């Protein structure tokens, strides 16, 4: 199933793209992840992940318009595709399914 597999970090980025809806570009995704999870990630890692997600078809991208920010350079915005949404749903349901099978009691030595 190579190609549809969703790594942990990829899933996080994909979720963030979905949550940000129309505002998702590199720096924004990075900031969001940092804010939500407290996880410091290098910007280059975000770019790689986004490009991989696009290759797998989970996201689409378009170039934004030029603004006064960042020396007039355009941003590449990413949006979740329906295929991407489905992948997230699958991951979610798989997780729920397994989660629900955990008996409602505690184990181990605590």
């Amino acid at each position, binding site marked *: 199933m190579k190609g549809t597999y969703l790594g942990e970090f990829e899933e996080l980025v994909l979720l963030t793209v979905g949550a940000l809806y129309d505002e998702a*570009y*590199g*720096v924004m995704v990075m900031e969001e992840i940092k804010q939500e999870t407290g996880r410091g990630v*290098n*910007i*280059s*890692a975000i*770019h*790689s992940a986004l*490009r991989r997600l696009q290759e797998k078809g989970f996201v689409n991208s378009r*170039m934004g318009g030029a603004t*006064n*920010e*960042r*020396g007039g*350079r*355009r*941003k*590449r915005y990413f949006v979740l595709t329906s295929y991407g949404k489905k992948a997230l749903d699958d991951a979610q349901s798989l997780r729920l399914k397994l989660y629900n099978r955990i008996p409602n009691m505690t184990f181990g030595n605590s």
Partner: protein
Amino acid sequence: MSQESKISPPRWADRFLRFYCRDEFLEEIQGDVHELFELRQQESVGLAKRLFVWDVLRFFRWSNVKLSNNKQFNQLMMVKNNIKIARRTLWRNKFYTGINLVGISLGIACFLLSSLYVHHEFSYDGFHENIDDIYRVWIHENDEGDEYFEGVVPMAMVTPLKTDFPEIARTVQISDILGSYTSRDQLLISKRLTVVDPDFLEVFDFKMIAGNRATALSNPENMVLTEADAMDRFGTLDVLGKTVDYEFRDQKHEFIVTGVIENTPANSSVSYNSLLSSDNNKKAFNENTLTGWFLYSTEVFVQLNPGVSVPDLEAKFPKMIETGLGEDYEEGWVEVNLQPLAEVHFDTIVDGENEPGDIQTVRILGLVGFLILILAGINFVNLSVGQSMRRAREVGMRKVMGAYRGQLIGQFLGESFMITVIAAILGLLTSSLLLPVFNSFANTELVLELNAPLLIALGIAVLVIGLLSGIYPAFVLSSFKPSTVLKGIRGNHKSRNGLAYGLIVLQFLTAIFFVSATIIMNHQVKFLASKDLGFDQEAKVYLRLPLAKGEFNGMSAIMGGNQQQAAQVMLDFNRITGIRDMAQANNYFGDNGWIMFEYEDDEEKEREFFYNHIDEKFIEFFNIELSAGKSFATATDLEKKTGVIVNEAFVKEHGIDEPVGSKIGDSGFGENRIIGVVSDFHFASLHQKVKPLVMSMESAPIFKGINGISINQSTRATLLADVKLEDIATVRDEMKTIWEARFSEPFELFFLDTKLEKLYEKERRTSSMVMLITVLAVIIASLGLLGLAALTIKNRFKEIGIRKVLGASAGNIFQLLYKLFLSPVMIAFLVSVPLTIWVMNQWLQNFAYQVNLGPVHFLASASAIALITLLAVSYQSARVARANPVDTIRYE
């Protein structure tokens, strides 16, 4: 926000990003990193810049790297292709590649070692921040034609230098004294201490490991220990505030440790031991030393104020001398001069406390290192030119496909650089392996550190070898015309052979020269060591007795006192069974030379002779040959008082016809009579001819007649003993017990033969260094020959096959190939002979007693080299001579 702040991210990083990044991603990536930078720079600009660089570096991933540009892509492909081709060619010709690698890495190793040495020699004293303002004070003494250049000056000069000259910012005396202390296990240990002015620590930038530079020596009770002394006495460097005691001039003194200073750096021409302040001068030196203007006792350095003219300052010194010397002052007799600290290390004229560097050795070694590097390069040139025909087709093909000449040159240069870089890495490893050997040969303590100078040297080596060895093949190969080479027509390669043989001749010239030089040097050093010195040196030990205590009036009395004391010690030593015989004398063999006396003869001519104050056994003890008269052993009491023994050189110089019974010198001397003449034994080193010598048991008559004296050793007596070597340990212990019952000074026993060997230490060192170089040069030259032989034979494979078919025997084939290679070796040999004679004669000038350069030296080197040539060629020829002509002719 960004409009207001003009702060921008590091330009180079931005440019780098633009350089590598694919155009399609550039905008978004650049945009993001710039946006982040703008955000971050509100917090901290520096951090933002660093993070920007970090981000740019992190973006440098394969997927982001630009490959799209068509032209650049093509070039990148070509580079990759060239590297591949180079790798394949080198791999296919393992033999030649191996020869090149070994040769060049040896060359580079040699070059690195020599540059390490050269760099060390030139780094002397460079670590003092004020080096340009620091000068050594030295004295030029002109005593009616006898000139002396003294780096050690009277201590009395220090005070006027400090007070009378506003140009001088600081004056520092540096004088060593011998102190001793009793260690915890009750051993008496002697240590040199250095008495300096407190400014010493300010003028010089020696590293303080503990303590305050400004105040460490401000008190006479303070002491700054060297690292080594601190470790010796306390086993730790944490010694501030501890007390140490040292005994000097028969008194015990206590000091408080206020600092720890590094040991004298290896590249410092100012040397020191643990320091005490010059406030202790009165305790450390006697009155004469402190105030005498004739007693040269201390090194003095001054730090001038910036901008002071040295000649103007020097012009003021005569006045100081005049005041100091008073009535004894004569104009032009004593001159005080300043010498920049930077020049001290290589100065051989002024007699300083430290052995000066030898600029000659430095130059020679630097040159030789470079020479060996070039020798290694020559191999490379020869082999690649020889191989060029093999690659002609490749060149033709490349040209047909549209390669420019420049590209081809680039390709071949690239190949040679590739091999050179690999060899450089191997060379670095080799030199780190060879360094301990080199250090023991050169008597240095060099360390191989990957620092800037070393990398620069390595860079130079790679550049020189890469260019030198790459450029000729590159231009030759790239000049081939595709139409001819592809048709298989061989170019005229006579000129190329000419070059190859010229280079081989040069290589062998160098190799033979070094071999002959090594043989001659070894011969000379052996000759010195084995030369009959005219006296027995086996199984002799000696020890120097302390000065006898008591009041003595004059030198002669002092020497007499010392002699008496020695006689008493000898009585004690008589008990020791391991001692076969004993004698005593004032001077011993193997050091700077004996006492020199000057006197004016009746014709008012200045004359000089050497002198030793001996006892009645001395002549027999050393088995010195008497050529006339008798020795003191059989002399009457009167003869012992007034008799002198002279050597033949003395008789000859003074033109005495009937020496025995006549007087030495002229009317000035006291009552004396020559009772014996000894043959010229070598009491000084073989660098000099044997000089006139006088020996007597009573020095008073001699002292009466002299007007000048230069003491090279001391007036102390030396006790000489002939010991049974198998008992040496017990003898030493027994001697020590007796010694310690008498003296508080440390007991030190020396072997005479070791001391004598030390005289030729420098020559032995040079000779072993040259030997090391020779080995390298010979290895490189034989490698080159081996390669060239293999190549020539390969190129003439067919020819040899045809010759065999036509009836040539294996012997004929051998003969053919030997002729080819022995001729360059012969030429090299013939040229090397006059060169070697000329250079080695210069070196032999250092000795009064030289070996004669003879055919023997050259025959040895010639046959060694010829043997190597034969071996190298035979090894290659045997293969082809034995081969079946069918295979060789078919060979394509």
